[in-house]
């Protein structure tokens, strides 16, 4: 019974986090984009525009959900839920604060990269079931993109796994108690970090890699035919995916909830410990999210051949060499 109660509480927390994160991230995106384009952004609905995304959500909830004729009804309606469930499963092994982790699995990082491949399935489903050529093209692009960028994302994750010697997320965080990997690991970790950020930006279909929904070429890509709540689910899953990959980035390179410590400055470290661990976690994650948004509102979209060139000719060779370098560093113990 206690287990069941725990289950219910965890589920409710997940759903609540989902909703709140969706609202906050969309609003953040709109504000960030506005300030980067010397505009004001949403500021009329609610105090300083804080209720803007709530209004959008309510509107999408009350909007008609269309299923086009000729679409494969079952798969068309299934696709948004596959996207949602895939994303929700990813929340399980993420430690939001010290000791606050739903499921401390011993293959945490592997689990994340395994389950995140469900996202591509949902996109392929949506693209095919819509019976629309733009959707199909978007889905195929997105499939090619995610499958290829998963490699370099995986390789840059492996870099940290090699340094830590463990796949478990709690071990990875514990290994950064005396300093985050980004500081301890010299240049190879920096290269791994940059590769990781580029690869996850592509994996979450964000601009400048948003070829799956490039509106100037493909109307809206794989979700062209989706309206109302079904579209909202895709939208939400996309933003939660961003949160999750940024959380993974923060865990791998910035030590998750681990406070910022400098060697043996006892006083400084003590002060840093006063800041709650959840603040550290969310601070780092939101910083990475901000960086990804920064990319989006600065860079123009790539062409599909440029996108695949970037992966296969640049990122993949570099990250492969980088894994070798990291292994050398780990074996010789050159990191701090």
């Amino acid at each position: 019974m206690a287990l069941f109660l725990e289950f219910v509480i965890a589920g409710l927390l997940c759903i609540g986090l989902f909703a709140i994160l969706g609202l906050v991230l969309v609003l953040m995106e709109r504000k960030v984009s506005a300030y980067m384009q010397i505009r004001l952004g949403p500021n009329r609905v609610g105090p300083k525009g804080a209720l803007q995304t709530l209004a959008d959500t309510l509107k999408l909830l009350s909007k008609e959900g269309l299923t086009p004729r000729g679409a494969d009804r079952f798969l068309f309606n299934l696709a948004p839920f596959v996207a949602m469930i895939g994303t929700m499963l990813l929340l399980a092994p993420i430690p939001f604060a010290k000791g606050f982790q739903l499921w401390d699995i011993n293959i945490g990082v592997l689990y994340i990269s395994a389950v995140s491949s469900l996202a591509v399935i949902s996109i392929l489903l949506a693209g095919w079931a819509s019976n629309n050529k733009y959707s199909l093209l978007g889905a195929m692009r997105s499939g090619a993109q995610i499958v290829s960028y998963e490699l370099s994302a995986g390789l840059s994750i492996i870099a940290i796994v090699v340094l830590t010697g463990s796949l478990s997320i709690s071990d990875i965080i514990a290994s950064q108690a005396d300093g985050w990997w980004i500081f301890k690991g010299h240049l190879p970790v920096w290269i791994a970090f940059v590769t990781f950020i580029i690869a996850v930006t592509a994996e979450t279909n964000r601009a400048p890699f948003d070829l799956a929904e490039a509106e100037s070429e493909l109307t809206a890509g794989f979700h062209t035919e989706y309206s109302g709540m079904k579209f909202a689910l895709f939208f939400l899953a996309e933003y939660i995916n961003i949160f999750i990959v940024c959380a993974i980035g923060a865990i791998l390179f910035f030590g998750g909830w681990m406070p910022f410590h400098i060697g043996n400055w006892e006083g400084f470290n003590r002060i840093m410990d006063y800041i709650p661990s959840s603040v550290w976690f969310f601070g780092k994650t939101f910083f990475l999210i901000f960086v990804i948004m920064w990319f989006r509102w600065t860079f123009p979209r790539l062409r599909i051949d440029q996108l695949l060139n970037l992966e296969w000719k640049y990122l993949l060779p570099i990250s492969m060499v980088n894994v070798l370098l990291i292994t050398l560093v780990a074996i010789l113990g050159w990191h701090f």
Partner: protein
Amino acid sequence: MTLKTYFSNIFSTIRSLLKGMRRTGYYFTHHKEIITQQYPEYKPPLPERFRGEVVMPHNADNEHKCTGCTACELACPNGTIKIVTKQEINAAGKKKKALDTFVYHLELCTMCNLCIVACPTDAIEMAQSFEHSVFDRNSLIKTLNEPGSKLEEGIE
């Protein structure tokens, strides 16, 4: 592609990307650069020659200067203006043509100013108003002379 160009490509790409990010980052942190004019509260000073719609000014005695000569109607390239005239007996007991209704189709008007140029008596002019949103297209058809208005004395 030699190894040298390969690496120089990477570095030049990263440099140019960082340059772009520096610019947007600058704008993100410097809010005084924001140039948004908040419209409903802030109405911008319109340029002098901005043309919003055709109006017919009336003086305090509800008198206008339009003689009903239809010069503007003939000048309008879109058929925006329709002038209805009537026969009126003036003070001297003579029958005279006078303006009955000055119909102005705002929804057809392209604000080209030709009617104002054509008007011999400067009876109409361009106003600066631009808030012409309505729910019904028919309310864009306007009568410019106010009810009961008369021709000003001394205008032929």
